[in-house]
């Protein structure tokens, strides 16, 4: 009986490319194309060092993009990462500043550096925990929750720095991590850490159960629950990871500049969102990849630096970014629709 519809050909399991790979390749080729275009238009753009700079100058946003991408794939937003960058940076400075400075802004808690960093990271995770609490337990839309915690985090930073910055009374080792160069090159520790996190993220996304669960939740949260997935736990982890990454970024940035500044990381949450969307991550969840996000960041970086190279006024940057975002997302939608016709 079973012979009726069975063809001689066995069921294939290799499709040339999955939709995700297709979009990632598309984004990567757009990134390369736009780089070549900029190289033609902008003098001295086509240089090895410039290419490296495109990545190294954007280590912070790309790092944040990892957490944001995972959350978007699970169907949730995280707009709080920029605020957390400011908060954890300011906290790390405040905790480590020695006691008894000349004024309030130069007086801290006098913790050893390692303890200050751990506590600052704790502050970042607390914001992530707050995100998870409201999104998971009280079922408030994540865009609202993280918009709120974005302001809470930056607000706390603002109070601690009294709207200014803290940069005095810091031990010398405070500036170590953010400025450490590695492998005898000019590549700094934060960039190496970003690369490491990217690799780990790709492994989690492609090879691990954790990554797969993220896609299931984003693709259909009801079906995921009815298939025995603990959605609450998983989304909580995702928010904690994202805020943890943002905390590390904040700590490294304040180490780099040896200051805690409440406006640091301003608009970074939107840049992280934009590179994820540019990289083909679906805002509705269930689709996207960290590699795509990385190339999205490259597109944005090329556009930004090419504007400067074209001696256009920096005032034009936002408009060019906007054009790039619209074009990229329209191309993706069109290409995917065409492919799946």
């Amino acid at each position, binding site marked *: 009986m079973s012979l009726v519809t069975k063809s001689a050909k066995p*069921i294939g*399991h290799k499709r040339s490319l999955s939709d995700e790979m297709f979009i990632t390749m598309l984004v990567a080729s757009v990134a390369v194309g736009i780089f070549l275009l900029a190289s033609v238009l902008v003098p001295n753009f086509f240089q090895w060092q410039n290419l490296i700079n495109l990545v190294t100058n954007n280590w912070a946003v790309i790092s944040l993009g990892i957490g944001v991408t995972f959350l978007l794939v699970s169907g949730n937003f995280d707009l709080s990462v920029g605020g957390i960058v400011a908060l954890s940076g300011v906290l790390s400075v405040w905790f480590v500043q020695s006691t008894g400075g000349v004024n309030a802004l130069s007086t801290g808690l006098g913790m050893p550096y390692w303890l200050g960093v751990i506590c600052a990271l704790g502050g970042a995770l607390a914001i992530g925990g707050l995100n998870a609490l409201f999104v998971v337990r009280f079922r408030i839309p994540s865009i609202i929750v993280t918009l709120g915690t974005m302001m809470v985090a930056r607000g706390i930073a603002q109070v601690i720095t009294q709207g200014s910055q803290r940069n005095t009374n810091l031990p010398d080792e405070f500036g170590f991590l953010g400025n450490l160069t590695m492998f005898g090159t000019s590549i700094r520790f934060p960039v190496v850490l970003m690369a490491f996190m990217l690799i780990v993220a790709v492994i989690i996304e492609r090879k691990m159960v954790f990554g797969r669960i993220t896609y299931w939740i984003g*693709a259909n949260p009801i*079906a995921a629950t009815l298939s025995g997935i603990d959605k609450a736990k998983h989304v909580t982890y995702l928010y904690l990871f994202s805020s943890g990454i943002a905390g590390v970024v904040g700590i490294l940035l304040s180490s780099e500049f040896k200051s805690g500044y409440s406006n640091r990381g301003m608009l970074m949450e939107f840049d992280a969102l934009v590179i994820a969307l540019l990289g083909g991550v679906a805002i509705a969840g269930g689709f996207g990849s960290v590699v795509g996000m990385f190339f999205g960041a490259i597109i944005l970086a090329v556009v930004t630096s090419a504007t400067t190279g074209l001696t256009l006024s920096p005032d034009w940057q936002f408009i060019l970014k906007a054009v790039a975002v619209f074009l990229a997302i329209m191309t993706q939608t069109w290409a995917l629709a065409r492919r799946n016709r």
Partner: protein
Amino acid sequence: MTNQQQSPVLSVEGLVKDYPGVRAVDDVSFSIERSTVHCLIGENGAGKSTLIKMLTGALQPTHGTMKVNGSVYQPNNTHEARGHGIATLFQELHVVDELSVLENLTLGMEVSRFGFFIKSDLEDRVIQTLKAIEPSIDPSARVSSLSVAQKQIIEIARAASSGANVIIMDEPTAALSEREVDRLFGVIRRLQETGVTVIYISHKLDEILNLGDTVTVMRDGKHIITKPLSEVSGRAELIELMIGRSAFQTHTPRTKISDEILLKAENLTNDLLKDVSFHIHKGEIVGFYGLVGAGKTEIARALFGADQVAGSISFKGQKVGRSPKHAIEAGIALVPEERRTQGLFTNLTIRENIPVMNLRNLSDYGIFRSADEVAAAIEYVDKLSIATDSIEKHTEKLSGGNQQKVVLAKCLFSDADLLLLDEPTRGVDVGAKTEIYDIIKDLADEGNSVAIFSSELEEVLGICDRIFLLYSGSLEEEFINSPDVDVSHILNVVTGGHEGAVL
């Protein structure tokens, strides 16, 4: 005008509606005469609601024409249908509790100029309509103080006073008590006297015999008959028309049922369920049969822990029902009612859908064994004859029957001892249905237990060993399936024919 008087108020000709893989409405033609109560009956999945959605503009037919008063009618949305005088009374009410009866009746019909209300005779007209159909409701009362039935009458009055001459009522008595039903019938008859035509959809056959002028029966998407109810001999005839006897699968009694009790549910109670108790043996296929709203899905979800209910559920001697995760770990899997919204990850591939309920089987220390995943997907595609050229196909591109098989594969992969199947063959074509039934029987023969929650009698009688009949949240009757069960008795029970009498 004379033309209007002669042609039927509403007629459909050769109406067809196709969904991917299924023809929901198949070449339906009939017409509805003015000022009649026209009843529409049929089993679940017979195509009634698809037909109604086309009449109200919510869906567009694939082929065929609809005519209102003899002229072609092609509504693109419910608003346009309203413009042609066709209004629908849905099961859920659309009244504003905070406003008065009068304000509710004039809602959306206010006459305004430059954004300000101006006086008109609208209020008088509306009050007259209301008085004509139900004099006991005070127009100045707040709607929140009214009963469900009265609110429903407000909706009817609103439809009538907005100039609707056809009102479609979809199961209007689902939430009403017997006295309220009588009152609603009074309203419908008075409406009829004012020249309004009512299309009445209900599973409760007594209501249809009591109220209707004409009846249209549908089965499997096809129009079976339209005839005056005065020519219908009674319930039995309607039942026979609805189920079309010949289609029954004959049940062959199975021998592999053990005496061991696998699951025992006691006194399950929630908003809908009333003290439901039963048990399921190892290797048994049980069926829960009842109409929509009888409590089938509620029981399935309670056993699976998706909803919390009062009462106790023990599975292999242990308590279950805390959460789906817990249920799956204990060995219970659910194929939910709505495959697209509850069962399937439509934008993922077949391969990516199958392992979700049994991750431990495919991973070591959190790392997926991709090769095993591919092997599992190929195995299940083969085992369930899922029609696809590749396991990398997105499940949204499969037909309904194949999608259902993927959901089934997902549950089979969980190695559950008890499978709960909620409407396992809804929207599935006949060929795939038979295949799914064979899979179910094989599973039971291997010693698993299966519970089928279905509103298709044919399905339940075709494969179940033991059948529970449900009516409005209570378990009315239980019987062992055999070739000589009394179908009309079953239909009598599930349509409320002997309410309260428990065997």
